[in-house]
């Protein structure tokens, strides 16, 4: 038997084969070419990875360099004489029922401006942020006894001074602000602090007092609505289509439609949301519930497709095993197929949700691009979302908004990271359990 391979004969009608010479030059060349092709492929692959990593690094570094100063703000020390006759407010008024009305009528802005002009000269008013007087208002509210006395407060500096402090050109009067800042610094009247206001406030027309919390909360609420709608509906659709639906023309059509839906441009979902949710159902404009519904329509097909693939990938032998021991079809689905498919379904959900989080186009159409000065209080309150906030701020002329835009992008990326982190944690947990 062993001799057949090495000494061919023509006696059985086979073609006579010349013994292979594994060391001839032709063979060596072929081997060299093979290794060269492999090296080339590895080099190209490495270059591709390196290119994408460097793009990512460029984006992140760029964002951090531009955005991190956005989390800081410059403050000016100002001594303010709080005179009753200037402020039009007495400590007694703050104890009674008309407290809010009295606070609204009080001229905090005038008192602060007067103090700034007195201290810094005619330009002094432009050193303090337009909304800087709110610091005095807070101080008075917290401690009414300061009325009639003189207080020293750190007030947020105007945007232009803030830009100079961060080494950037201000929007106007560059030299004037630069020399003013140098003088303030020399007198020890400026400091840089972490801008907690940025993390707690909502949008504002004054870049110094804008905050990201409004958009962040809007995104949270919108994503919440999207998730609780699209995840169960998507998973149940996938389960039904894979496990129960008969294979016929109708299910084929449904499959094609779902695949098409996943590829429909997002702006069309926005138009649909505008026509159906706002038009037909008369739901509130700019509300997270409408945004969530619209984004859920967009996310659902992604979850259905990922879910079906994950369910398909569950080994049929597991289904056989469960059926063979007398499990009913629903027990097979919920006790065996779904838990095994869940990691895959979650991966699809992450992709869909991440896409929804970054979506602006459909939300433009349902009014979520409005200027919203306060964080949303509920699902039907007016809100905006993080990418929309980035879009809105990037349209602003005032230079101070540049760093705020970058800072908002950092927050958006952190949100995304947090969401993916949770999903990956959940996925690993389920993978360990099974």
């Amino acid at each position, binding site marked *: 038997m062993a001799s057949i391979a090495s000494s061919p004969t023509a006696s059985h009608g086979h073609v006579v084969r010349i013994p292979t010479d594994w060391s001839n030059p032709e063979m060596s060349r072929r081997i060299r070419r093979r290794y060269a092709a492999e090296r080339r492929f590895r080099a190209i692959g490495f270059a591709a990875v390196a290119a994408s990593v460097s793009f990512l690094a460029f984006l992140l570094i760029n964002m951090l360099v531009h955005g991190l100063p956005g989390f800081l703000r410059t403050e000016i020390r100002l001594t303010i004489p709080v005179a009753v006759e200037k402020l039009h407010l007495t400590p007694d008024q703050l104890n009674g029922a008309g407290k809010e009305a009295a606070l609204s009528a009080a001229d905090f802005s005038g008192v602060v401006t007067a103090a700034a002009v007195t201290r810094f000269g005619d330009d002094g008013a432009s050193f303090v942020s337009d909304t800087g007087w709110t610091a005095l208002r807070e101080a008075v509210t917290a401690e009414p006894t300061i009325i009639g006395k003189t207080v020293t407060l750190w007030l947020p500096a105007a945007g232009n001074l803030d830009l100079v402090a961060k080494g950037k050109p201000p929007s106007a009067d560059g030299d004037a602000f630069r020399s003013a800042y140098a003088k303030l610094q020399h007198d020890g009247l400026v400091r840089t602090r972490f801008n907690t206001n940025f993390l707690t406030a909502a949008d504002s027309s004054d870049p110094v007092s804008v905050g990201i919390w409004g958009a962040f909360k809007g995104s949270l609420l919108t994503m919440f609505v999207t998730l609780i709608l699209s995840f169960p509906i998507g998973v149940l659709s996938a389960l039904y289509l894979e496990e129960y639906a008969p294979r016929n023309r109708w299910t084929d059509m449904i499959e094609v439609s779902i695949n098409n839906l996943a590829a429909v441009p997002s702006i069309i979902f926005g138009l649909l949301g505008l026509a159906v949710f706002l038009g037909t159902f008369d739901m509130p404009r700019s509300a997270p519930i409408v945004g969530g519904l619209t984004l859920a329509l967009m996310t659902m097909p992604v979850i259905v497709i990922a879910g079906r693939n994950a369910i398909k990938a569950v080994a049929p032998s597991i289904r056989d095993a469960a059926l063979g021991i*007398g499990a009913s079809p629903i027990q097979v689905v919920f006790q065996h197929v779904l838990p095994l498919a869940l990691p895959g379904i979650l991966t699809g959900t992450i992709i869909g949700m991440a896409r929804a989080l970054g979506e602006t186009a459909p939300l433009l159409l349902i009014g979520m691009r409005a200027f919203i000065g306060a964080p949303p209080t509920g699902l039907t309150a007016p809100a905006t979302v993080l990418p929309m906030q980035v879009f809105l701020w990037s349209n602003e002329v005032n230079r101070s908004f540049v760093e705020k835009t970058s800072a908002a992008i950092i927050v958006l990326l952190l949100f995304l990271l947090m969401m993916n982190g949770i999903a990956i944690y959940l996925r690993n947990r389920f993978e360990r359990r099974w």
Partner: protein
Amino acid sequence: MDTQTTAPPAAATVTTKMTARDVSVFYGAKQAIKNVTIDISRENVTAFIGPSGCGKSTFLRCFNRMNDTIASARVDGEIKLDGTDIYTGGMDVVQLRARVGMVFQKPNPFPKSIYDNVAYGPAIHGLARSKAEMDGIVEGSLRRAGLWDEAKDRLQESGTAMSGGQQQRLCIARAIAVDPEVILMDEPCSALDPIATAKIEELIDELRGKYAIVIVTHNMQQAARVSQKTAFFHLGTMVEYGDTKTIFTNPTEARTKDYITGRYG
């Protein structure tokens, strides 16, 4: 054939557990099984042998209605368990599969702990009223499957982490745990090495008499070793059915003889 490779003799008195009358199975227009009639006895191990594609597995899957899961499959004829028709007799398919357990070709434990694998069947059928009772069922089933000594210290480890042979015995323990009346085995050793195969065969021999066992096998020696009754299938028909000894030593049909002697298969 010498005595060491031959199964113990058939039981003297037999009771019929399952009967098949004129059973035909169709996959769409293709007929996979043609008018098969057979009685399965409670006391013996019955082997189905035959070349690949002869329909022996298809026929086996009729006994617990696993063919129901294939949309295009259709079963004609009559199959009875203790005199009740399992297709038309108003028997619940879920209960049927608890009474007629199955062990598959490829070991397919659930990706759960060893304990949960065995406890799953009793749990879904509500066979244990307490944790202690469940523990007893799990231990008893693992003991019967000859797996207790190997598994008792690792009950909470995943069933899929065991070796192939252990996994298959775990699958047998899982089938036993619901206390079935019949166990169908679809080529249970074809994915196993000879040592694991020998253990399964030993186990089948120990289980004989407690459960009616039907085994499909590719391996004629295995059929000769473990079974008392053998049915030879070819091209969808049952060519010959009789005592294993007779089939292997003195078959009536020429086709059986050709297959037994290795002329085809």
